[in-house]
C-alpha cells in the first residue's frame, strides 16, 4: 500500500533550486532508502516529509506530498500534528541534555498522551524496549541521556521518536557517527520497526541501503534518477548514473 505519495515536488533555497520534479511513492511498512552523493537533495527531500524545511526562512517547497491522501503542503495542515505522526532521527545523535526518562517522555508530555505517571512510565518503558535500549538503561533512567555511548544515544533518539507512536519515521543518516556494531544494532532495529512504522532512511552507505531497505531511490543533482526495489537497484539498475554511483565510478 502506498503511504506517502510525492507529486512534482520542487524545492528552492532562495533562487537556487535544490529539488526538481520529484515524484515518488513510498510503501507502507517498508523501508525506503534514499541514496546519492552529497548535496544531491536526498536530505532536503526527507525534510520535506515532516516540513522541517519550514525552519529555514529562504526554503520554498512546491508540489504535493500526500500522506494518507492528505496534502501536507496544504495550508490547512498543522505542522505540530504532522510531526507527531512523522518522527525523525538525525545524523548526529541529539538527545536533549536531560535525563533518559525526560528524553523519552518529552513527546508524550507535549502531546498530552499520558494521563498519569503510571501511563507515562509505561510509554517510556515500551518505547525503550522497542528501541532495544531498555535492558541497558533501565537502572539509570534518571541519569543524563548525554552520558550514553553514541550508539545508545542514537537508540535513545529512536526511542524518543517512537514514543509518540508515529506512522512514519524519517532517518537522516542515522548511523554515520556510529561504529559497525552500533550500526548493526540500529539496522536490526530498523528491521523490527518496519513492522509498525513506515521508514525512510537517507544513507551514504550503499551497503547499508542494500541491507536495510526494500526500496531504494537514487538522487543526483536534485533529480530522482531511479527508484525501485532495492535488489534491482543493486544488481541491475536501469540507469547508467545509478550504476556508476553504486559501483563507485562517480566523477
Amino acid at each position, binding site marked *: 500500500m502506498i503511504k506517502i505519495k510525492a507529486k512534482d515536488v520542487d524545492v528552492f533555497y532562495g533562487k537556487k533550486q535544490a529539488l526538481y520534479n520529484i515524484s515518488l511513492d513510498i510503501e507502507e511498512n517498508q523501508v525506503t532508502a534514499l541514496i546519492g552523493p552529497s548535496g544531491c537533495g536526498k536530505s532536503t527531500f526527507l525534510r520535506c516529509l515532516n516540513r522541517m524545511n519550514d525552519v529555514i526562512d529562504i526554503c520554498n517547497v512546491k508540489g504535493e506530498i500526500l500522506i494518507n491522501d492528505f496534502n501536507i503542503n496544504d495550508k490547512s495542515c498543522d505542522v505540530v500534528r504532522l*510531526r507527531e505522526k512523522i518522527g525523525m532521527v538525525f545524523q548526529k545523535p541529539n538527545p536533549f541534555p536531560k535525563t533518559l526518562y525526560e528524553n523519552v517522555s518529552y513527546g508524550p508530555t507535549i502531546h498530552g498522551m499520558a494521563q498519569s505517571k503510571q501511563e507515562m512510565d509505561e510509554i517510556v518503558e515500551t518505547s525503550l524496549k522497542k528501541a532495544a535500549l531498555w535492558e541497558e538503561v533501565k537502572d539509570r533512567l534518571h541519569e543524563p541521556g548525554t552520558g550514553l555511548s553514541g550508539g545508545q544515544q542514537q537508540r535513545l533518539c529512536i526511542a524518543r521518536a517512537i514514543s509518540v507512536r508515529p506512522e512514519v519515521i524519517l532517518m537522516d543518516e542515522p548511523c554515520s557517527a556510529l561504529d559497525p556494531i552500533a550500526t548493526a544494532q540500529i539496522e536490526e532495529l530498523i528491521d523490527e520497526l518496519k513492522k509498525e512504522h513506515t521508514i525512510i532512511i537517507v544513507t551514504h552507505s550503499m551497503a547499508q541501503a542494500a541491507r536495510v531497505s526494500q526500496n531504494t531511490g537514487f538522487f543526483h543533482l536534485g533529480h530522482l534518477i531511479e527508484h525501485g526495489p532495492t535488489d534491482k537497484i543493486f544488481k541491475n539498475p536501469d540507469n547508467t548514473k545509478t550504476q556508476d554511483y553504486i559501483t563507485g565510478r562517480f566523477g
Partner: protein
Amino acid sequence: MNKNKEQLLNKRYRAERRFRLYGQSAIFMALLFLTIFIFKIFSTGYTAFQKTWLIVPVNFDAEMMMIDQNPSKEDLQDADYYDIALKSMADLDQNANDDQKNQLKRMVSYFFEKEIKNEILNDPSLIGKTKEVYLTASDDLDQVFKGNYPRDLPEDQRRVSDYQLKIFDQLVAKGKVESKFNISFFTYADSREAELAGIASSFMGSIFSILVCLMIAFPVAVLAAIYLEEFAPKNRFTDFIEVNINNLAAVPSIVFGLLGLGVLLAIFHLPRSTPLVGGITLSLMTLPTIIIAARASLKAVPPSIREAALAMGASRMQTTMHHTVPLSMPGTLSGTIIGLAQALGETAPLILIGMVAFVNTIPGSPMDPAASLPVQIYIWAESAERGFVEKVSACIMVLLGFLIIMNLFAQIIRHKFEKKWS
C-alpha cells in the same frame, strides 16, 4: 639542500621560541601591573579598617548636665553633654589656656558629645561617677597614630599643632590611645569629617541601583534576545536593529547619564539622586551588553537540539522555552553579571543624575537619595583631608570585593546550571 632545510627548521623553532617569549612577557606585564595596583591599594587602604580612639576620663556630673540625680530616660536624652565633654577634654591638661582648651577639644571628633551620651544611656548608674570613655580621635591624630602624618613639617603647614602632638604623645605614653577595628566605616554614612565617614550610604546605594538595574535590564534584554534570535524574521529591519544594539553597547556611558537627566528627571520628574533613577540609567547601559551575551549564548545552543524538539512536534515557543533558553542560561547569566559589574563600576552617568550629592543618611529604599561606591570614591578622592586618602583605597577594596563576590556568585550559578544540563 639539506643544510638549507636545517636552517629553515632552526629558523622556525626560533620564531616559535620568540613568540612564546612575547606571550610570556605580556602575561608577566599584566600580572606585574595588577600586583602593583593591588599592592598600592592595599598598602594605603588597609589602615582605614583601623580607627584610633582616645581614652579620656569623663566625670558624669549631673549638675553640669543640667539634670537631677535620678533622671528619667527622657531627661537623659535631652541632657546637655557638651559641657562635660568639653570639660573632660580640657582636663587632659590642667594648665591649658582657652586657646589650648579649644585645641584639646579638636583632638577628638565632633561626635565626642554623642559618644559620651551613648555611654550613659547604656548605663544610667554612671551619674556622678567618673569613667574612662573611648572617643574617636580626629582624622589628623588618627593619621599621626598610624604613622602616615609628616610630623617633621613646620607647624604652620600642619593641621595638628605642636601642643596637640605633645598631649597626644603623653596619652600614647600612658597607653590611653588605642586602635580598634573600624566598624563605623561600614555603618556610617558619608561625612565631611574623615574619621566619621563611612560607606554605608554608598554601599546601599550601589546595591539598590544594581537591583533596579537587574530587574529592568535582565528581563527586557533576555526577552529581546529570545525574540531576535528565535522568532524574528531575518530581514533588513532586524539587521538594522542588530547593528544598533551593537552600536548601543559602544555608546559612552555619560550619554546614558544625559538621557537619564533629560528624560527621567526632566520629563518624568523621578526623584533626583536616587538609586531608582541611577538603576534605570544603568539598565539602559547594561541592556545591550546582556542582549549581546544572551544572543551569543542562544546561538551557541546546537541547532540539533532545536531540530530534535521541533521534530518531536514541539511548537516554536515550546522549543525555545523547554530547551533553548535553559541551555543558554549559563552564558546569559555570565553576560548579565559582566554587564552588572560594568554598571557597578560606572560613575559618569550617576554623577549626571545627581547621585554625586553629599548624602549623610543611609537610604532605606531605592527612592531615597544615595551615592554609589564608585561615586563615593570619586567624592573622597576629591577631598583635601589626609584622612580620606586611605578611605579611597579602602572603598576601592570594598568595590573590588563586591565584584569578586558577584563573579563568584555567577560562577556558582553557572556551575550549577551546567551540571544540570550536561
